[in-house]
């Protein structure tokens, strides 16, 4: 390959140096929140004809290898998979085992997220079977990319940004492989039934709509119709039955647990107190909270506040688990708009409760749509690896420069009315508040409040919150004060040793390039 990984570096609207040619394709630099106005029409997949598909609706082929060959697998293609099975995914690795066996090279893997189980793919990144990953990279894959070993340049997108990239034709998927807990021979599929039940299949929606070829793989093939059809068979080319599609206990935890860490509980409690004191919680409010220990605990405290006032939350937009489900069934919350399901209670509720609604990155997050749900949410609670004194935040890399997490829905949810980051001031001696974030994932204007165990900092842009928090008795400090407090305990860290070589880029929700990720020097 003679193609340059990246070229034509410019300074974007927030002063970050980013390439505008990536893996041979042109990309726009970040222009500011809401500034890039897309033109033209959406990407259109090929027109299909029923004449080419069996009238009896039976699209079953004997195995994945045959399906991939029928789908025309060849060098340089883009293959997409999805992370509904999280670390219990058994299919993505098999696809590339087959590609390797067939001697196919230079593939672009376009997962909605990768997990530690995908460490299996590193030899294929080394031998050229896979050129690059466009999706989250953590663990061994993150290390591989961060050390500059990937042939192509990595591109990290949010869940909404992934939908946008597919819809806008920025990423054209040749073959989408959708692993499904239940499917019928026509290709209708869902995640609510079957031994690998994962709740929903929303991350595969764009792929089913726009990919050239779509393969559904299941271990629970039922006669037509498989309902609910979260994925519609009308988009599907081939169906494959396998013995096992995913490892159940790695897909869904039996029980999600609220954190027991006293420090995290304190931060959660302070977050809820802040929301109460500043009037962010009211009858009919909505919030987004993840499935991490701190976020779960914040949801519990929100529940207490709602009950105390005899209020209801109109909806929770979140990954679901037993805690929001309890609130739904108790009537403290009217709707769960579920993005991904984390435990068995979440799946049960999705089957049983009409008000437990499955959503997709299209409805919740796609920035190139006629609105989305994210901006309607009152309170959004998110994590971060770093924040800087200008409230810029990082969620993908560790302070030492290594890729650590995907963006997930994180960037998309920033559009909620108030975004709060409950974070400890330091982790293992490393202060979380820095002069400048290692990798920029959110411009500071999107982050409203930092809640730490040692105080709360409000973005100076949020004069309303500063005013309302004045007499709350809560420890309100400036972000600079919080930074200095952490440094008085930990010391001032040195800067990580990074090369000026770019290994990946961070996309903003509108497809523009927000920042570059640099190679880590040992």
């Amino acid at each position, binding site marked *: 390959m003679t193609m340059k990984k990246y070229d034509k570096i410019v300074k974007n609207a927030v002063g970050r140096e980013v390439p505008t040619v990536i893996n041979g394709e042109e990309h726009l630099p970040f222009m500011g929140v809401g500034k890039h106005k897309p033109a033209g029409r959406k990407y259109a997949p090929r027109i299909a004809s029923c004449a080419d598909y069996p009238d009896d609706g039976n699209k079953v082929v004997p195995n994945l290898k045959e399906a991939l060959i029928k789908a025309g697998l060849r060098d340089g293609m883009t293959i997409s998979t999805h992370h509904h099975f999280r670390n219990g995914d058994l299919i993505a690795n098999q696809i590339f085992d087959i590609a390797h066996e067939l001697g196919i090279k230079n593939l672009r893997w376009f997962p909605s997220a990768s997990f530690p189980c995908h460490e299996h793919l590193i030899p294929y990144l080394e031998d050229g079977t896979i050129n690059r990953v466009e999706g989250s990279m953590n663990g061994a894959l993150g290390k591989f990319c961060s050390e500059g070993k990937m042939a192509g340049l990595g591109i990290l997108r949010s869940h909404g940004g992934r939908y946008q990239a597919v819809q806008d034709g920025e990423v054209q998927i040749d073959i989408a492989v959708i692993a499904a807990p239940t499917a019928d021979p026509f290709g209708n599929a869902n995640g609510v039934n079957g031994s690998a039940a994962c709740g929903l299949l929303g991350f595969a929606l764009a792929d089913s709509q726009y990919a050239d070829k779509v393969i559904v793989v299941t271990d629970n093939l039922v006669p037509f119709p498989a309902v609910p059809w979260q994925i519609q068979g009308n988009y599907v080319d081939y169906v494959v039955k396998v013995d096992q599609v995913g490892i159940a206990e790695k897909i869904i935890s039996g029980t999600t647990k609220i954190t027991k860490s006293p420090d995290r509980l*304190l931060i959660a409690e302070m977050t809820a107190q802040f929301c109460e004191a500043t009037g962010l919680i009211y009858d009919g409010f909505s919030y987004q909270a993840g499935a991490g220990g701190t976020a779960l605990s914040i949801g519990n405290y929100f529940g207490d506040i709602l009950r105390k006032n005899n209020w209801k939350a109109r909806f929770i937009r979140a990954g679901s688990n037993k805690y929001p489900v309890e609130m739904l069934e108790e009537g403290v919350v009217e709707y769960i708009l579920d993005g991904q399901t984390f435990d068995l209670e979440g799946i049960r509720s999705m089957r049983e409760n009409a008000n437990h609604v499955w959503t997709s990155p299209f409805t919740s997050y796609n920035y190139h749509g006629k609105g989305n749900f994210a901006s309607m949410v009152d309170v959004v609670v998110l994590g971060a690896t770093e924040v800087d004194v200008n409230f810029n935040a990082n969620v993908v890399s560790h*302070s030492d420069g290594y890729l650590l997490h995907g963006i997930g829905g994180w960037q998309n949810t920033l559009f909620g009315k108030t975004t709060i980051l409950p974070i400890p001031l330091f982790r*293992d001696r*490393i202060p979380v508040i820095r002069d400048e974030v290692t990798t920029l994932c959110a411009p500071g204007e999107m982050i409203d409040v930092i809640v730490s165990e040692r105080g709360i900092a409000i973005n100076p842009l949020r004069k309303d919150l500063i005013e309302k928090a004045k007499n709350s*008795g809560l420890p309100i400090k400036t972000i600079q004060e919080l930074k200095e407090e952490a440094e008085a305990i930990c010391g001032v860290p*040195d800067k*990580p040793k990074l090369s000026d070589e770019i290994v990946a880029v961070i996309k903003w929700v509108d497809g523009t390039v927000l920042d570059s990720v640099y190679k880590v020097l040992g």
Partner: protein
Amino acid sequence: MDKTGTAGNKGSGIRSDVWVAVTQTQSGGVQVEVKSKVKALFGRQIEALTEKVMHFFGLENVQVSIEDAGAVDFVLAARLEAAIKQVIDTDKEFLLPFLEENKMATKKDDFRFSRLYLPGNSPKLMLNAGVHNPNGLILDLEDAVASAKKTEARYLVRNALRNLHFYGAERMVRVNQGARGLEDLEYVIPHYANLILIPKCEEATDVQRVVEKTNELLEQHEMNHPVWFMPIIESAKGVMNAYKIAVASPKIAAMAIGLEDYTADLGTRRTNEGTESFFARSMVVNACRAAGIQPIDSVFSDVSDMEALAENVKRSKALGFDGMGCIHPRQIKVIHENFAPDEADIEKAKKIYLAFKEAEAKGLGVVSLGSKMIDPPVVKRAVTTIELAVNTGKLNIHWLEREK
């Protein structure tokens, strides 16, 4: 053979700590080998501090291996010193500059609702302990430290007293029993410990020995900050001598009961209801009240059951106790809330306080509420109640402005 000194902890689950091995060599200068998960950001600083400590102790040729899990400077310095003192004989102490805020004096009648135990050799639990706002933080050199780690814990506790942020919590240390406890004092008294907990007291002399040694140390270091004492009664004999112990020194601010050891001594088991310890608890409360000091209850060991803890605190308050030990930060809030005054107490205190302010503004010597005259001790109690209510979050600190 070259002698190696080791100190600290390593392995999975270890955080904010460091393991060090120091070996004196014949030549080669100071060689430092650092393994650390924060090496990219703090490796240079870990090496620099290590070299500084080696030079301070005059070690010119030495091999130092460091396995770090995010230890801050005072922890690393304590571990290095503990290891060095296994290799060479020296009286020198490597001390980082004292945090000025830690030179805080406490009063005999300060609130002591909650005191959080911190194992003296576990830095992980120390760093954030103060942010949970206990009235006191106890650096425990006694039961929470394994016998093989007793010596190295002293350096860590000493450094914590100097460099850990206590966020206003009273700085307490539980020393060991007997001779070892007297030696422990050398590591804590010169570093502004506010209060010493004396375990397993059975006689007045158990306390007096500690008080005398403390006074010697204060004199020797030309210091005069107040050091208070809290004897702990943990046996049947201690209970029978409770009053004698309570009056053993005017520097005793409080006396506590330790029920795990006490119930073992009785040959019974501890229950949530506490029937088996009713006599002992009442004895301690009575002795303390007779001596004019604070009676403090035992810890509640089920850290997951906050409701049972709340019940326990209510019973404790009803028996006459003024405070309780905690073994988990989440217990602090429950303890404060349940020892704190209730709504009716607070409302009454506010009225008395306002009447007092009004009388003061008018230059009146006598405070009256309605037709009732209010005595000065009642005003003082009202002020205390309000202070308590504010401290425990039951009353907004700006209540007075809001009242107007």
